[in-house]
Each structure stands twice: as C-alpha cells, then as structure tokens.
C-alpha cells in the first residue's frame, strides 16, 4: 500500500454524528470477557489475539474514545484511546475487511450481545471514506454501479442466455408455456438473480423456472436490473449501496411487479430487504420476500408436488449467515429441504449457531485475503465431512462458490446445490 497522508476528518465524523445510539452503546459495552474468541473462525484457525472479534471492534472503539471522550483526549494511553493514522488505517483494512466475514456468530456468543459486525461495518464505512476499500471488492461494486450487475454482463448477452435456458426448459417440459418471461409488466413475481448464474452457472435459473412453471406462477425477470447482490453492503459506502438498491426499487415500479422475490443470495437478501429501505430512506411499497419462503408457500398450499424419493442421497444444509442467524429463515429452509429429500443430516453446529462458509462479508471477492479464506474454510470442510452427507444444500450463491472451492481443496467429494435445484429435482410435474 502506498503511504500517504490520510484525511481523517470524514472517517471521524462517522463516529461522532451523535445520532447513532446503537453504535455508541455497542462500542462502550464490551466487558472484555473474551467469550467471543472461540466463536470466530479466524481466531480458531490462527489462534492470535488480533483475530478475537472483540479486538477487531476495539480498533474502532479505541478511535472513538480518542476523539469523543474526555478520558481518551486527556490520557489516551490509560484508556486505550488510539489515534487514526496511516498505520491504524492499514491495520483496520487488514482486520475489518481481511479478517471478518461479518457472520455475526460472535454476537450470539457474546456475554452481553454486543453487535460486533455493526461496529465492523462502521469501521468499513470509515475506510470507504478514506478510499481504502480493497481494490477487488471496489471493482465488484463499480461493475454494479456502472452496468447494473456486479459482473458487468451486457444486456444482450443476458437476454441470449435466458432465451437459451428457456429453449432447454421448453424441450424438457415438452410445453411451449414453460417460459422464462423477460421484462413483462404487471406480474406477481419480479424475480432476481445473482449475476454468476447467467454468466457461469445457469442451471439454477432453469431450476427456479421449472418450479415457477410447476406452480403456474405469474413472473418475470428484468433484462437490465436483475442483480440481487449489493456489495455496497460490504464496501461500507452507503451512497453506493443506495444507488445499487435503487436499481431494483425503480425497476420493479417500472415493470409494475407486485412482489420483489429475492434469489438465493444471503447478503443480497439482507441488503435489499432489511437495509434497502434504510439506504433509500423510504419504506418499500411492494412486498419483499426470499425465494425460499415463496417455495415454502407453494408446498404448503399444494401448488407444487414433490417426491422426496427422487433425492435419496444423504444431504446436509449449510445455513447462510444472513438468511439464518441474521435473517430468520431457519424453519422455512428446513421445511423446504425436508419436503424435497429423504435423508437429511444436520451439521454440528447448525442453524443460528452454524459456522460461516468462510466467504462472507465480501471475502469471496477479495483476492487479497484468499489464503485466509481457504484456511478458515477448513472448519466448514470438517463439519461437512463429519456429517457424512453427499450433497450440501445452501440457498446462497456466494456460499455455493466458497463451498465448491472447499470441496476441491479439502477433497470432500460432495455436490453443492441450491434450494431451487434440489426442489426442481424432486418436482412431480402435472402436465398443463
């Protein structure tokens, strides 16, 4: 990194706004009990004090104290109050971008429930204000800002891919109504995708299209703004996060969609559904729901018929942090998977206490920290191996990619699938 004089005015303003009681109370609350250490994949993998979640949050809190408390101003050494300088900023980049997936497992293990990822996200906001976001992460955000999707897929190439998947589905179903409708107005479902699906892994698109077809759903995908991800949630730049959130918000209005259905993406679901209204400073006037919940409703209402015996291999579930620990989908995911497979073996731990895949928080996009990502992933790899499962199901494309890499690196010999894929394989199609 090039050494330069940094402008500390803007980052310090983030800590001294005076209207964020959640930040101030959480920064002041840590009792240094150390219980969070063993909850963190980075600490478990490296066993160094700097990786303790509380120590990462302390980087931000110590700067807060230095500039916002009398004790920190008068006797900084006594109160562990630290100056924000180049060295400190570089340490923050390394720890807050490079050594935290913001998975929130530490919050569940904290003796008093300090929201450490919230403090980490504020630290990232400070770094974004200093233009210190890792280049690979910023490049993904820039692609989304400039083109509407984070892989910069040109619109005509996206359309060609969807048409290709549609032709295959029509052939498979032997029905010209087995469509993947693009840019249609007044549909009840406005569906969204992770750009890696059309770019490299389109089988998950045909899988969900098959489910919608079976359920006789009225649905569409926009050919321009379909990207469910929002890497502005990770890079800490709220203006950029708002611009990206605005794309889906405006597009669903343009196409007069009724429900924004979030494709299988953990952070994208959170950044759109929970953070989106905050970024845009407005309440959404349309329903926002994940595709997992939509599929669950089809099963409950008898809109689709599933035959579990079609998926007879032993499966396990990887719970994406932003959908389960931070998203409340534990039961819905179990309901859909148990309706689709005949042999489910949970990992240990699982559900709200599950370990992150290791690729969250933008880690998958940041080549700078690849080695750490694979190393902490060993914990997840061991969990998978111990489950004895042959198939790992996860409703998050980011997790899918990390698990795929772990599968290869640690020779797990498993198949990684999305929820739509496992459900599509269990579908019993009643010819229309």
């Amino acid at each position: 990194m090039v050494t330069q004089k940094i402008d500390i005015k803007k980052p310090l303003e983030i800590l001294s706004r005076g209207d964020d009681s959640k930040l101030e109370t959480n920064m002041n609350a840590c009792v240094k009990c150390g219980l969070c250490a063993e909850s963190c994949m980075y600490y478990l993998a490296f066993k160094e004090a700097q990786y303790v979640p509380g120590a990462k949050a302390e980087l931000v809190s110590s700067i807060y104290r230095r500039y916002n408390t009398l004790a920190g101003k008068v006797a900084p050494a006594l109160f562990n109050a630290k100056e924000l300088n180049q060295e400190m900023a570089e340490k923050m980049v390394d720890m807050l971008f490079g050594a935290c997936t913001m998975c929130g497992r530490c919050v569940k293990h904290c003796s008093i429930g300090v929201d450490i990822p919230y403090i980490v996200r504020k630290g990232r906001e400070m770094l974004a204000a200093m233009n210190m976001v890792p280049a690979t992460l910023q490049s993904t955000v820039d692609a989304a800002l400039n083109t509407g999707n984070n892989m910069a897929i040109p619109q005509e190439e996206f359309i060609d891919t969807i048409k290709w998947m549609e032709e295959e589905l029509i052939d498979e179903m032997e029905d010209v109504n087995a469509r993947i409708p693009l840019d249609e107005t007044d549909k009840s479902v406005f569906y969204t995708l992770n750009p890696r699906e059309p770019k490299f892994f389109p089988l998950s698109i045909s899988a969900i299209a098959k489910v919608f077809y079976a359920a006789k759903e009225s649905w569409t995908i926009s050919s321009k703004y379909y990207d469910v991800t929002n890497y502005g949630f990770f890079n800490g730049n709220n203006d950029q996060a708002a611009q990206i959130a605005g794309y889906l918000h405006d597009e669903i209005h343009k196409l007069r969609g009724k429900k924004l259905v979030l494709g299988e993406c953990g952070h994208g679901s959170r950044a759109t559904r929970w953070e989106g209204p905050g970024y845009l400073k407005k309440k959404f006037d349309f329903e926002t729901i994940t595709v997992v919940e939509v599929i669950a409703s089809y099963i409950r209402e008898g809109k689709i018929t599933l035959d579990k015996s079609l998926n007879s291999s032993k499966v396990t579930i990887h719970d994406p942090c932003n959908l389960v620990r931070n998203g409340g989908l534990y039961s819905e995911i179990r309901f859909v998977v148990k309706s689709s497979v005949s042999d489910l073996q949970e990992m240990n731990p699982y559900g709200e206490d599950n370990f992150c895949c290791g690729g969250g928080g933008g880690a998958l996009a940041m080549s700078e920290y690849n080695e750490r990502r694979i190393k902490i992933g060993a914990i997840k790899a061991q969990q998978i191996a111990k489950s004895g499962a042959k198939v790992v199901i996860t409703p998050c494309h980011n997790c899918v990619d990390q698990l795929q890499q772990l599968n290869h690196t640690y020779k797990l010999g498993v198949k990684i699938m999305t929820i739509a894929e496992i459900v599509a394989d269990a579908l019993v199609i009643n010819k229309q």
Partner: protein
Amino acid sequence: MAKLEIEGRVFDVDGDGFLSDPSEWNEEVAALIAKSDGIDQLNEKHWAILKIIRDNFEKEGNAPMIRKICQETGIKLREIYDLFPLGPARGACRVAGLPKPDGCV
C-alpha cells in the same frame, strides 16, 4: 503480489492464483496451471473451451458467457463442470490465464 510455483516454474499471481500478467500465458503454462488443479492431461474438449475463453478475453477483455462456450464448442453445460471441477471461473478462466472475474466467483 503472490507467487505460484508449479514444477519449478514460478508465476506472479493474484491472491486467488490467477496470473498477474495474462500475456505470460501460453499452452505450456495452461497445462501447468491445470496440473495444479488436479487435471493431469488437458484433452481436446479442455482445449476447445480454453481457446474460446482466451479469444474472448483478447477481443473483449473479459471472460465469455458460459452460453457462448457451450454453443461454440458443442459441449454440454454439465460436462463443462465435470471437465473443470472448480467451475468455469476459478477453473477454466484461471487455466486460460485470465484475471479473476468480479463478483461471487
């Protein structure tokens, strides 16, 4: 910058093991990277896929859509995932000497 050593040859790579300088790529380099991914011998189908990825990169500056790879080589989608177990991005694009694509790959 990270280093990747395969059979005595050393390459400058990014953290994910993608070549830092795509112009350093040639067929011998491809075979070496493939080996480090556990593909001992690149067959005709591997080469057909690599050629399209490489051509697209040289003309457009990025990786082609998987549709283009399938339609121009005639290789079935599922077979591509079998040929490159790490997938089209971390697998095929890396062997083809491209920079790592942005996004969740």
